């Protein structure tokens, strides 16, 4: 695997690596993962830092977890769906938009996955 295509290595642990991937090279990084035979996704995490929203895609490569970290603006956060290449991500993307208000283009759903209709919107946003 050509790890330079995944972005800059930002953190390495016993069995995980986290890469900071620029949004514009996200698709290239996904293609690199697929070419290396990686198609298992553990989950997608979203973090509202107060200044930006970090979206972390956690993939599995053998015994190692490989994470791509994408930074999105807090206002009008948008990212394309990856469900065609990684069908396992479909629910995680819905959770991401429900909890943090990130629009996942191509995987919008009128129904909530977890939250009740009268629950506060985007409960994991910092303003709450």
């Amino acid at each position, binding site marked *: 695997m050509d790890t330079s295509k995944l972005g800059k290595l930002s953190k390495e642990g016993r069995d995980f690596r986290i890469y900071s991937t620029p949004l514009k090279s996200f698709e290239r990084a996904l293609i690199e993962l697929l070419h290396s035979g990686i198609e298992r996704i553990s989950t997608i*995490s979203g973090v509202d*830092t107060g200044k930006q929203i970090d979206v972390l895609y956690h993939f599995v490569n053998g015994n190692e977890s490989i*994470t791509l970290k994408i930074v999105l603006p807090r206002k009008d956060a948008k990212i394309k769906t990856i469900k065609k290449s990684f069908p396992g991500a479909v629910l995680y993307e819905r959770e991401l938009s429900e909890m943090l208000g990130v629009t996942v283009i191509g995987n919008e759903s009128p129904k909530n996955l977890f939250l009740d209709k009268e629950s506060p919107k985007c409960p994991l946003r910092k303003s709450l």
Partner: protein
Amino acid sequence: MSTRIPVGPQHPALIEPEHLDVKVDGETITDVDVHLGYIHRGIEGLMQKKNYQQNVYIAERICGICSGVHTSTYSEGVESLLGLEVPKRAKYIRTIILELERLHSHYLWLGLVAYEIGLDTAFQISWRDREIVLDLLEKITGNRINYAMNTIGGVRRGITKEMQKETLQGIDALWEKTKYYKEVFLKDSIVRARTKNVGVLKKRDAERYSVAGPIVRASSVDFDVRTTNYAAYADVKWKPIVRHGCDINSRLDVRIEEVFEALNIIRQCIENMPEGPLKTIVPPVVPKGETIMRTEAPRGELFYYIRSNGTAMPERVKIRPPTYANLLALKPMLIGSELADLPVIVASIDPCFSCAERVGVIKEGTNKKEIFDGRRLRMMKDAP
């Protein structure tokens, strides 16, 4: 012509709420949609408002069956943020608790599958023997569930020599009983008829949908997170169990063999238990950073992402329990199956949700049903 049948949210196949919107053509399932959220408790949000130590107790309460694996994963995650090396004895005790938990979870599941296919005796026998494990856990930790064994930096209690001896006796008894289950569940013609080629999840689908745990291992995929050598798994001899039938019968086979493996792991941990402290000194401040911790819960890969901003409380704790990953497998398993097989197929992924959130009241003397949602209950509470 297709018909829609709502299944749940009141306890479809097991005593936990989920709603399946099933489309059938005659007796054959043609489509299925899963609805969740009946028990969403906002635990990830809550964890951002509590300190690292308090969060051990919250993690413990995510699941009643696999509470030990949640605290293990969370504690090991925070330990990796702190750069702590946990004493070896604590790692061995954690492994024993994790495997005892796997045992009682697998016995519970065997009982559920037996119940769903109409074998009530096998259900009662497997739940009776599960009590042996729960009694051991109670004697070791003080609790049948929510053991409160783990803490950041190690474990809170040791296992005395007498308890080690008693655990070994319990394991010997369970070994014999599990041999009997193997005969019943894998050779009995009725069980085979109800489980062979039922709820098939092909290897390709299991890989594409990122399914985890015994389900994926029953579909020819060798994926067991214990190979990442957390806790004391590097020190014991064990092997991941992989089967190739892709059906419920294979899932039975995988889980029964995993019971033998778990018994072996516990025996090795007790026989080679090192001496030493139970807990290491924990620095008061968690430095800024992020970490990923993955473990193999009884139902599959449990995932924690923890980010610290250097304050007393974590900036984010993301949890992905195994059932969440395994739900996507329901669709390929159910489509094309007979409607009568739905309960056993749903039970075969061993789903784990939690308690209900709404109250329905039928007024005395009338047949009128009133639903009290969260807002009305709050209003009633605030009313004088």
